């Protein structure tokens, strides 16, 4: 390429820049939710086996990951905390989900989150990076978020927010698997699955906190996980969402999974001696028809491993 061609191309691209403000159109999640969603709950001390058993309760990973799917696994890697401090998703659960997705024939498995603390420290000290990197499979990538990939998305059905910057890879995934950890939170009382989706937002996320429950429901209208696997192996009862003291952590060796994000959150709430109706995001998402929050209407499948 000579200089003249280079300048010409630059001009052409600049024209493209002025004409195409990068915008992402996401069709709102309209698929009618299952009127009686299946929720699988398992307990066991071998967390890899437990994860597999809970997924088996939903009919196996093959129900969610089809051959050739681009899969995103979105754990909570929000904090520079160790696995036993219960602020991030347990690394073994992340590992097990990745292995299951690979076995189901995923063409790629991406793992990422946008931490609140330094991303490198959070990836490292959550134990997740060290659990994922050694996987000898070129399809698996754990990566820090690329600032260039946040795209503005119109939230057509949004009641509290009309536009959000969302990570492109999360939107484009064939199968987005939400793998939150269940824990205490000062504002939303608990942070579970819907709250975990905040990890794919760009910009100033602090502004989400005004009317947080409704905004999380609004976000759920454009970002619907194919599968929600909730880590309640050890739960943070106080001083969430980052904890830091083991005195606040209780081990209950439980994993919950469902295709319905609202149902998964609602059922998990009961582990904290709370009602689903105590969590604003659950109530708001249910009101918008995004999922079921009545425990009675769920089909519960319990497993042990």
């Amino acid at each position, binding site marked *: 390429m000579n200089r003249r061609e280079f300048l010409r191309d630059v001009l052409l691209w600049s024209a*493209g820049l002025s004409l195409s403000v990068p915008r992402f159109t996401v069709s709102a999640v309209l698929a009618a939710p299952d009127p009686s969603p299946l929720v699988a709950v398992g307990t066991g001390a071998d967390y890899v086996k437990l994860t597999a058993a809970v997924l088996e309760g939903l009919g196996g990973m093959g129900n969610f990951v089809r051959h050739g799917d681009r899969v995103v696994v979105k754990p909570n890697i929000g904090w520079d905390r160790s696995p036993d401090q219960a602020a991030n998703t347990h690394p073994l659960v992340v590992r097990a989900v990745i292995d299951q997705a690979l076995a189901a024939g995923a063409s790629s498995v991406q793992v990422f989150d946008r931490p*609140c603390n*330094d*991303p*490198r420290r959070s990836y490292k000290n959550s134990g997740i990076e060290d659990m994922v990197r050694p996987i000898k499979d070129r399809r698996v990538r754990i990566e820090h978020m690329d600032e260039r990939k946040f795209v503005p998305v119109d939230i057509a059905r949004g009641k509290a927010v009309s536009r959000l910057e969302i990570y492109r890879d999360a939107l484009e995934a064939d199968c987005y698997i939400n793998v939150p950890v269940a824990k205490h939170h*000062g504002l939303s009382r608990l942070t579970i699955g819907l709250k975990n989706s905040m990890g794919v937002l760009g910009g100033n996320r602090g502004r989400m906190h005004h009317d947080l429950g409704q905004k999380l429901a609004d976000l759920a209208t454009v970002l619907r996980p194919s599968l929600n696997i909730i880590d309640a192996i050890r739960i943070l009862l106080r001083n969430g969402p980052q904890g*830091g003291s083991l005195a606040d952590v209780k081990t209950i060796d439980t994993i919950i999974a469902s295709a319905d994000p609202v149902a998964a959150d609602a059922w998990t709430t009961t582990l904290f001696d709370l009602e689903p109706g105590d969590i604003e995001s659950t109530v708001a998402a249910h009101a918008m028809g995004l999922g079921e929050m009545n425990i009675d209407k769920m089909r519960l499948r319990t497993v042990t491993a």
Partner: protein
Amino acid sequence: MPGPGKQRNGPAAGSAGKPHRRLAPWRRLSQALFLLVFFFLFIKTDYTGSDRLEYAVNILFRIDPLLAASVMLAVKGLVALMLPALLLVGLTLILGRFFCGWVCPMGTLIDLCHPFLRPRTRRTDTLYPALPYLLLIFVLAGAFFGLPVAGYIDPFSILVRGLAIAVYPAFNQTVTGFFTYTYLEAPGFVNVVTEPVYSLLRATVLPFDQKYYTLVVLSAAILLAVFVLELIQRRFFCRNLCPLGGLIGLPAAAGIFRGYGGSDDCKACRTCRTVCRMDAIDEERRLAMSRCILCMDCRDKCPRDLIGFRFAPPSRRPAPVSLSRRAVMAALAGAALLPLFSGVRSMAKVPDPFLIRPPGSLPDPEFLDRCVRCGECMKVCIGNALHPSFLESGIEGIFAPRLIARIGYCEFNCTLCGQVCPTGAIRELELPDKHTFKIGHAFFDADRCLPYAKGIPCIVCEEHCPTPEKAIRFRNAVVENDRGETVTVRQPYVVDALCIGCGICENKCPLPDGAAVYVTSAGEARNPEHTLPAADSGLYLSP
């Protein structure tokens, strides 16, 4: 260009026996290698997955005898961290100022820029040969009397600070900007090439994230000036300003490595004088080892191969430079008298309440006595919390680090600034100590904080508060919100005994402009006078 050690072309015209092998290529090779090591260590001055830094990234500052002398004179004691500087003094006694010509990254960069910044005149004599020594006297006397300014003129401080604060962040923004453009706008076939290149750059030379600093322009301008001065004469900074060069010129002059050369055979030839970048050769073609940086140009270019270097006792030792008594007295008087004004400045009575020093910092004035303004702590700070201060602590405090929480917060589990500090101005803290080391204190601005001012629920500060037992807690309050409704909101407050002043609350506060919670130096552990009135003294750690 002939490779290292290659036989010189053409017959040796002189009578001095075997023709010389050229040595300048070896010097350039050495410069290149040390420059690469310098850049490598600069890039590694960062978190790389381990709580401990893996390389001695601050080594350049610890072998610097100017900074060592300045710090030790200032604190009037031995500073063990800086003893490696003796190594450089010792080596200079044996090998002369090899460091300036073969190692110093600033000198290498200046030499690299020479082809683009050729001096406008041909004059070879140094314009202000006495200036490095006057600066040296001023800096060392200043350090002793309470005006620690060595970092303003030390070549490594200027270089690393300028790179860390200005050049490197700007480099990252430019490169990232370009690849953002290609990523968003260029057609696919372009991205096939550009994206792997960008990934490679990210993994190697680019920083993890974009940093922003105060005093960017000043830091850049000072560094840039060193290079622009090349337009006046070669190695202008090294021979007209650099007090470190002046300082190591003293052992070089007294040392055992000596150049020899000129004789009557030279006749009218002045090649050596013309090529010398340090004005180290006089009319008699004698080499002054206090100035010579062993670049080997004179030796390689001498038409008769008369010039060489050997180990020999110094025979006639001309004074490195003639200093006028008046100038020396002026430098000493300035250094001794200026500090007399320090004690009557307003800051001596009421320090700037927003001047927060890094965790582990020594109390003032020893902190500034030791700080050499190298910028290493600001480079390594993963939260982008540390910034060069300006005049907040006086003219002797410029470029010393301060925490500006709205730009970046102090990461709870990080102790890197104490690890890179070459002088111990920032003490290295063990993690359990860091967790409770109080650098300041958070206060809420109830006129701005949403739950107070507007009755709007917001808990972002509490959510991010890193102490295991939260230093930010809530009181339930029944208030009328901005819609006239009576609501119960949780209003945050700070627990004096738990807040460590990390500033994450101020940093993450979702208000668009200034934060509704801000950190001051109140309660900082390094100053007992700043203890909070209500603090339970048992929970405060003394430095």
